[in-house]
């Protein structure tokens, strides 16, 4: 059950490492402006909060959801743990409506890193210059060389467990922790890859393979997508939030930010929020929006005011546009051997071949794919909805649970203006217009997915699978406040600073100009580390609009 009152208050916040424990927390008055008010405590917001607090700024981070105590509150149970998802009303539509909720959202301090798969991959370097180097989509305003040190910083902060020599891309040295032993579904991927002559490896994962501070090594319980009950997972709640608190940041949980206030000079002056049913206002010199690719544009649009009637930071008209997801069509097969894919992190082996090979493709972009490990409830829903099975046929198919293995890709989609987040007329419990998500695949997106299904099927059969079948799904949400070099074609610059309002920043997956063929969390955290450094530099040079 979800806690009913905030826990981070009165000078203390939950200690995630001690059952029922607390750690001291700073408290800032609402009437005095803090240097930074950050909206959202996930991969973007929590990381930036730690970086800015460690740099000496005063920081308050808001999150609409609770400050969980994983040791006390995370059950080994799929249904109970649905409490981790953002389930406020939303509408999904377009030609290919994206499933929201558990697929791509989190509600609570730590955001969706509470239930993410921990896959921690870097972008292929060329993707940062996709237009000029690979001839599709758009360039990012930063290069791989610029973000590389921050990838290393994020990997160290998370103590990512991975191979000594990652088989694709530029040399990056060994991962901080040794790789995890690969489970049976991952070994199936490895066997298939070797038959087909492509490389594979243990997935770099943000769950520790050896003790780390108060985090014990992963025990392979397999409920990673439903919250880690041991704190082996290096989520933002376990990694960045304790750092932020120690450095003097304040976290306000169960605090829904409803509007950003704009002053007479056209600058952000603070955030309106609701906590315990009361409307409150926190003054701030800078506001950072880190609510992920739906709530971030929604807050900017819902904050429309006389100076900015089309929403904040929206002179380009691009806020909410160029929404991307990752397609994840699955291919599944039955094996003679026992797989028992409920054990271990769900995606222990990866193949990035088609992210790095450019020959023989009838599409632009790439995809990684991983071995899978769904738990019974989610798996039954995949079987039932993808194959239309019910009655005895469903129970019969489910009896194969322990003999099933399969792959699913993280398949790039193109940034297109018509895929977008907009406001519906309907309002929610706060009286705010709810978001409507409109999405459809392009011809290129479909060609890429067909390729992935062909290749994964071939590999699964080579590994000994039979009775193959496929399913459709998506994961992650990106774009909607893209970064760029030109105010006419982007919402923010390379520092996450909005072009229109000099003290309004964005720091989450909304920034991505392209989606790449890997899970985004490591790149979001690397970007947040970089934005933190940039803000420090700008402050030193006196280039912040509202200097601390």
């Amino acid at each position, binding site marked *: 059950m979800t806690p009913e009152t905030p826990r981070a208050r009165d000078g203390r916040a939950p200690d995630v490492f001690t059952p029922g424990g607390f750690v001291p927390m700073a408290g800032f008055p609402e009437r005095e402006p803090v240097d930074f008010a950050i909206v959202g405590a996930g991969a973007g917001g929590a990381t930036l909060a730690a970086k800015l607090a460690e740099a000496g700024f005063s920081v308050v981070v808001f999150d609409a959801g609770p400050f969980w105590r994983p040791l*006390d509150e*995370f*059950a*080994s*149970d*799929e*249904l*109970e743990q*649905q409490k981790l*998802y953002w*389930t406020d*009303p*939303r*509408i*999904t*539509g377009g030609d290919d409506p994206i*499933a*929201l*909720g*558990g697929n791509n959202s989190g509600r609570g301090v730590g955001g969706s890193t509470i239930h993410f798969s921990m896959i921690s991959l870097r972008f292929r370097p060329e993707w940062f210059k996709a237009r000029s180097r690979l001839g599709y989509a758009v360039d990012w305003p930063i290069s791989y060389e610029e973000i590389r040190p921050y990838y290393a910083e994020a990997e160290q902060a998370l103590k990512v467990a991975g191979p000594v020599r990652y088989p694709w891309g530029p040399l990056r040295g060994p991962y901080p922790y040794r790789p995890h032993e690969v*489970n*049976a579904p991952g*070994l*199936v991927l490895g066997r298939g890859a070797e038959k087909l002559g492509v490389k594979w490896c243990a997935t770099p994962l943000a769950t520790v393979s050896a003790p780390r501070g108060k985090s014990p090594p*992963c*025990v*392979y*319980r*397999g*409920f990673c997508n439903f919250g880690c*009950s*041991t704190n082996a997972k290096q989520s933002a709640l376990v990694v960045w939030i304790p750092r932020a608190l120690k450095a003097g940041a304040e976290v306000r949980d169960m605090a829904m930010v409803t509007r950003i206030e704009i002053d007479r000079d056209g600058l952000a002056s603070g955030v309106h929020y609701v906590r315990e049913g009361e409307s409150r206002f926190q003054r701030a010199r800078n506001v950072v929006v880190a609510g992920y690719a739906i709530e971030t544009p929604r807050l900017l649009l819902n904050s429309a005011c006389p100076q900015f009637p089309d929403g904040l930071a929206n002179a380009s008209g691009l806020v909410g546009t160029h929404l991307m997801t990752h397609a994840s069509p699955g291919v599944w097969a*039955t094996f*003679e*051997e*026992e797989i*028992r894919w*409920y054990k*271990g992190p769900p995606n222990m082996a990866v193949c990035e071949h088609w992210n790095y090979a450019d020959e023989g493709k009838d599409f632009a972009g790439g995809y990684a794919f991983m071995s899978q490990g769904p738990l*019974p*409830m*989610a*798996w*039954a*829903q995949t079987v*039932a*909805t993808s194959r*239309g099975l*019910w*009655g*005895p046929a*469903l*129970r019969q198919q*489910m*009896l*194969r*649970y*322990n*003999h099933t293995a399969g792959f699913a890709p993280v398949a790039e989609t193109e940034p297109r203006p018509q895929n977008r987040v907009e406001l519906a007329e309907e309002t929610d419990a706060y009286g705010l217009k709810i978001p409507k*998500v409109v999405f459809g695949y392009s011809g290129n997106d479909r060609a890429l997915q067909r390729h992935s299904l062909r290749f994964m099927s071939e590999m699964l059969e080579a590994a000994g699978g039979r009775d193959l079948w496929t399913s459709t799904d998506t994961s992650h949400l990106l774009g909607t406040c893209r970064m760029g070099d030109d105010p006419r074609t982007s919402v923010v610059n390379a520092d996450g600073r909005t072009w229109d309002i000099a003290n309004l920043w964005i720091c989450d997956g909304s920034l991505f100009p392209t989606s790449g063929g890997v899970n985004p969390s490591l790149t979001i955290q690397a970007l947040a580390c970089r934005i933190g450094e940039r803000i420090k530099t700008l402050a030193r040079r006196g280039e912040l609009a509202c200097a601390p």
Partner: protein
Amino acid sequence: MARGYPGYDVLAKWRTPSFDEKTREVVRRRIAQPPARRFFTGPEQRLVEAIVARLIPQPDRAEPIPLAAMLDAFMADGRGQGYRNEAMPPLEQALRVGLAAIEAEARTRFGRSFAEAAAEDQDAVLRAAQSGEVDRAAWRGMDPATFFREALLKITAGLYYAHPAAWSEIGFGGPASPRGYVRLGLDESDPWEAREAAP
């Protein structure tokens, strides 16, 4: 393959390091006597009982998993997924409209209520809803196939496999904290995992 796991009971691990206190609390609630009806009306409840008995038949169980009651609790607690397809009304409303439309389809086809129809007639109505080949008037603009797949079947299948008896049925390890697992490889299992029946 698909030989089943006779004698395996996830709940036999209740007092082992596979069950922590939080999980015991959650599972205890799930297997307790189902709470009194809160969401469905009496007639709706009888209809739901009949529908879920076809979606997930349990002739093999002396004590069937109380799916209709679980669905009622799920809806009453507002545990839905939050978002909705633009072609669908909010879940609560969708379920009421969909159930009424299934009932209407049964009456049109067989002149009797769904709950009183023969099993094969009930299946025919459900198949018609699944494929969208029903009288649309009763569906009030909602797409029957989307309703069947994304609401009725998805939630029912999920709830069945959220019950410990279903975990035991398919040989799922079940709750696993703090102990987790040690043997992860192909054809490997720990002593606290299910044994498959011999071929």
